[in-house]
């Protein structure tokens, strides 16, 4: 049981149990011993809902990673492929199956598609002549995965790209399905708010789906009061700016995948012989980051500048606690001390890890280049010189900094200027193509198509109006003891979160004008509840809002939402923000279509770490 999931206002363990049950049912269907062949990408998300022990209880004896040619030998009755519906994976599966037939005893093959079966894939399997070899072909709809007590994610990295670049709305369908599942478990959400084209569509699908279920009333008392659906393209600024919270910076620099981060091992070398006395580790250090770790829960959402003092305070507390042993005189006292040891050891380990991570981050944030980049970003966001060619960006191109960094800055400038002047845009384009290769014409076109980069039309820059009305830029930011969400970007208050904040108080009516400037419709829908389920609100009772970001969310935005929720908790008119956020979308990176083989940034591009928010979605409560 994942205890941290039940800390929040909404017990997400209910959801976790539900998806686990479904997994067990599928496994039991394939009677006898089994081996699972994994699409490697899926092991991350699955790891969040089940450990190997669960699989083992259901006779899973071997696990392999999906790769070409033959399957490794395994004395099992069933071979089950856990795969995403991707054509290229089907080719590998077919290869596996075909080379299998020639050897030994016949085995049963099955496929579990996650999150959905795909027609194209099954057609491909048929073309390859292996479709008939599979006894069970099923889907496992892992739509929303619980990440933390207040966070759910769809873990669909490509969502942004699919929705806004390829106009493939399948991910919206999954989102709607996920929300239906959530409502089945936690009750109908009485009010739905939304902003953006995709939000509108998801709401429509939900309403339609609900109508289908009218035969059986949902009789669960609603846990969520509101649902807010937000399109990522309503706020393209937040994912482009550098996140400055602790968790946000870990993500910016190392990339957080499925709540895990991989760090350079040097800083984590065992200091004492007792730790195993092995050689220096050469493999990346992998750490899981979630609120189950007390210290991390405390510092993850702080501005990085406030993390150091917390760490040093903790260090003092812990060493004081260890010193206690000298004061323990009686057997009873010693016994008590010893009983606390495991907890103290864990706290010390956790402190050591985060001190090392903070050092790694500090190396980056104190560099001159980081400072210069931040300065430029902040100038753009506060509206300074967004209409001319920026000399720092020029320098970055001249020095051939990673393309993704350059693109992020150019796009940021474009967003903060409601599009770039044609002359400026053409200049940047030319420089980029000459330095990084002409094939990036395709990359630039993709960015334009997704609205991240565009020429200014109508000669009007709307950004200042938006900035002022929504108070997106705050000059005095208290990073240590924040009073406003703008601390997460040291000045810029994420637009998306501001919208959520204004919705809860005083309501969107006050910002109609800005809502009209932002892309897509805004709307409100009510889902009527039977009288028995309507809440009689106690005065002062908090409301729980689920916020769903369609196309991803940054860790900094999540931090800002958590901050709001605490703020509201303390106040008398509390309304608690619960938010759910779906998983982040793709990064700019996925827009880079081509990199010649020797381009070192190619790998960075495909891993997509730096750009958009990568994060998990969720709900908090």
């Amino acid at each position, binding site marked *: 049981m994942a205890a941290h999931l039940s800390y929040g206002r909404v017990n997400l363990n209910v959801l976790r149990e539900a998806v686990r049950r*479904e997994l067990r049912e599928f496994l039991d269907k394939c009677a006898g011993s089994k081996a699972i062949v994994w699409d490697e990408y899926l092991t991350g998300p699955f790891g969040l809902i089940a450990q190997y022990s669960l699989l083992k209880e259901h006779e899973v004896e071997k696990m392999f990673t999906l790769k070409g040619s033959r399957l490794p030998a395994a004395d099992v009755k069933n071979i089950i492929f856990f795969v995403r519906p991707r054509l290229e994976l089907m080719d590998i599966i077919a290869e596996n199956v075909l080379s299998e037939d020639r050897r030994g005893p016949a085995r049963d093959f099955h496929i579990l598609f996650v999150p959905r*079966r795909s027609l194209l894939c099954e057609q491909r399997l048929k073309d390859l002549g292996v479709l008939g070899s599979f006894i069970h072909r099923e889907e496992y709809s892992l739509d929303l995965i619980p990440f933390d007590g207040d966070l759910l994610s769809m873990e669909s990295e490509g969502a942004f790209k699919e929705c806004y670049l390829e106009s493939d709305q399948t991910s919206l369908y999954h989102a709607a399905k996920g929300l239906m599942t959530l409502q089945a478990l936690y009750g109908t959400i009485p009010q739905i708010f939304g902003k953006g084209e995709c939000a509108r569509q998801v709401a429509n699908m939900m309403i339609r789906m609900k109508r289908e279920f009218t*035969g*059986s009333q949902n009789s669960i008392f609603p846990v969520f009061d509101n649902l807010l659906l937000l399109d990522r393209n309503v706020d393209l600024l937040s994912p482009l700016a550098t996140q400055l919270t602790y968790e946000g910076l870990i993500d910016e620099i190392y990339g957080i995948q499925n709540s895990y981060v991989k760090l350079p091992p040097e800083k984590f070398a065992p200091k004492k012989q007792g730790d195993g006395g092995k050689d220096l580790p050469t493999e990346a250090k992998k750490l899981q980051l979630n609120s189950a770790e007390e210290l991390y829960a405390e510092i993850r959402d702080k501005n990085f500048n406030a993390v150091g003092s917390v760490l040093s305070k903790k260090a003092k507390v812990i060493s004081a606690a260890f010193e206690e042993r000298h004061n323990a005189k009686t057997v009873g006292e010693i016994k008590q001390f010893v009983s606390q040891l495991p907890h103290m050891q864990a706290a010390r380990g956790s402190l050591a890890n985060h001190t090392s991570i903070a050092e790694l981050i500090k190396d980056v944030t104190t560099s001159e280049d980081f400072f210069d980049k931040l300065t430029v970003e902040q100038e753009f966001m506060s509206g300074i010189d967004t209409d001319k060619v920026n000399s720092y960006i020029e320098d970055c191109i*001249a020095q051939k900094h990673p393309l993704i960094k350059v693109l992020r800055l150019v796009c940021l400038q474009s967003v903060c200027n409601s599009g770039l002047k044609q002359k400026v845009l053409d200049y940047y384009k030319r420089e980029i193509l000459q*330095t990084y290769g*002409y094939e990036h014409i395709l990359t630039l076109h993709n960015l334009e198509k997704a609205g991240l980069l565009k020429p200014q039309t109508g000669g009007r820059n709307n950004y200042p109006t938006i900035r002022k009305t929504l108070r997106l830029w705050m000059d005095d930011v208290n990073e240590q003891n924040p009073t406003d969400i703008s601390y997460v970007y040291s000045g810029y208050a994420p637009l998306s979160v501001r919208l959520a904040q204004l919705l809860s108080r005083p309501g969107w009516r006050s910002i109609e004008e800005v809502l009209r400037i932002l892309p897509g419709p805004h709307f409100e829908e009510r889902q009527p509840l039977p009288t028995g389920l309507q809440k009689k609100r106690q005065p002062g009772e908090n409301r729980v809002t689920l916020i769903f970001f369609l196309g991803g969310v940054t860790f900094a935005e999540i931090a800002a939402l958590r901050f709001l929720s605490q703020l509201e908790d303390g106040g008398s008119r509390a309304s608690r923000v619960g938010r759910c956020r779906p998983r982040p979308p793709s990064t700019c990176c996925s827009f880079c279509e081509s990199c010649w083989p020797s381009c070192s940034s190619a790998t960075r591009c495909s891993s997509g770490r730096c750009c958009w928010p990568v994060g998990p979605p969720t709900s908090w409560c």
Partner: protein
Amino acid sequence: MNRTKGDEEEYWNSSKFKAFTFDDEDDELSQLKESKRAVNSLRDFVDDDDEDDLERVSWTGEPVGSISWSIKETAGNSGSSHEREQLKNRNSFSTYAQLPKPASTYSLSSFFRGRTRPGSFQSLSDALSDTPAKSYAPELGRPKGEYRDYSNDWSPSDTVRRLRKGKDKIQLLEEAVSMHDGNVITAVLIFLKRTLSKEILFRELEVRQVALRHLIHFLKEIGDQKLLLDLFRFLDRTEELALSHYREHLNIQDPEKRKEFLKTCIGLPFSAEDSAHIQDHYTLLERQIIIEANDRHLELAGQTEVFRKHPRKASILNMPLVTTLFYSCFYHYTEAEGTFSSPVNLKKTFKIPDKQYVLTALAARAKLRAWHDVDALFTTKNWLGYTKKRAPIGFHRVVEILHKNSAPVQVLQEYVNLVEDVDTKLNLATKFKCHDVVIDTCRDLKDRQQLLAYRSKVDKGSAEEEKIDALLNSSQIRWKN
């Protein structure tokens, strides 16, 4: 009615969804049977290319595009447990098949359109009847008089007849689109692609943007470049057509072939700005091929010093323009403008801005430690014959680049001295240990304190220390502090 935990358990295993499943089941099964029959006969004349095709795209045996197929698709909403339930029941098909149709609200049309008429049987025909006739292309439409067909339940033969005319195919597509389920839309598109002529398909999709985007994505996915280009041509989306064609070059490894391919891209309807870039892309590769052949030969012959001393690490083929310029500044700096590989020629051909050119040439010459060339790069003569140092990129950048290429202090300090801003100059000089510059600058600033502080940074007994001492003791200078 509050649901407890135990209930939830039950819910996942069975309860609610199953309830509605059962409601529908018979409905679905009878439809299933009908449509199965319908589509089986349909195949005979609609789909004459490949018998298997219709079956191929199905998941559970129902042909794609059949109603039951789509319904199952929607039923999938309730999770796979529900689907399993259906599978089970389907196995006992015959027992259910004879049951009368129940009054169900679960039907394709209500799902899509959100219309609910409890108690009435809704079917495809229902949905059709309220769709304005003008949304069909005239070719596919039917005379108004035939509309009455739709007011009744349809029989297999009706289905076949209508599907054959194409109208229901389009209806099918609209229903799929309103579901937003990419899988369903793609399935229907595959069916349509196979059963409609290209012209009709394109024309129908032109007014159905969502479906159109799906088809485009699908064609890209399966790599049907030909149909894709036909489609763009039909839609007159010329720029996309051009880009899509251009994208193909990435799949061509052979440089000659790639070059030939790029040639075909020139003149495609790109925007004016992009056209120039595409032309440049072609010209660049053309140059690179010539340079590569020539240089490989030179390198092998081993007669040229620069290739012997600095063997090439990689081929220049497919490198970006700036990289190519660097290469040519490195290996072909002194060549006359007439040769393809000369930097000046590249600069002219591709209209490389001065700044870019100087930056690149500087980096290349510094790497070779050709300080004389570096010097020449910044020396300009005015019309009176005086020489002057000028750097379009600013001398602070020059210094940084030289330092990166580990230029000796003598060279560095010459350029540090040329930095105009005094603070920057002092910073750079200190950073790169150009002692003379620091000392002289302090002297010029009359900053005794700073000079004193700097004394601790130079080696004991060095010439610099002596120089500082001499200055500190000098009575000629009026220190400001």
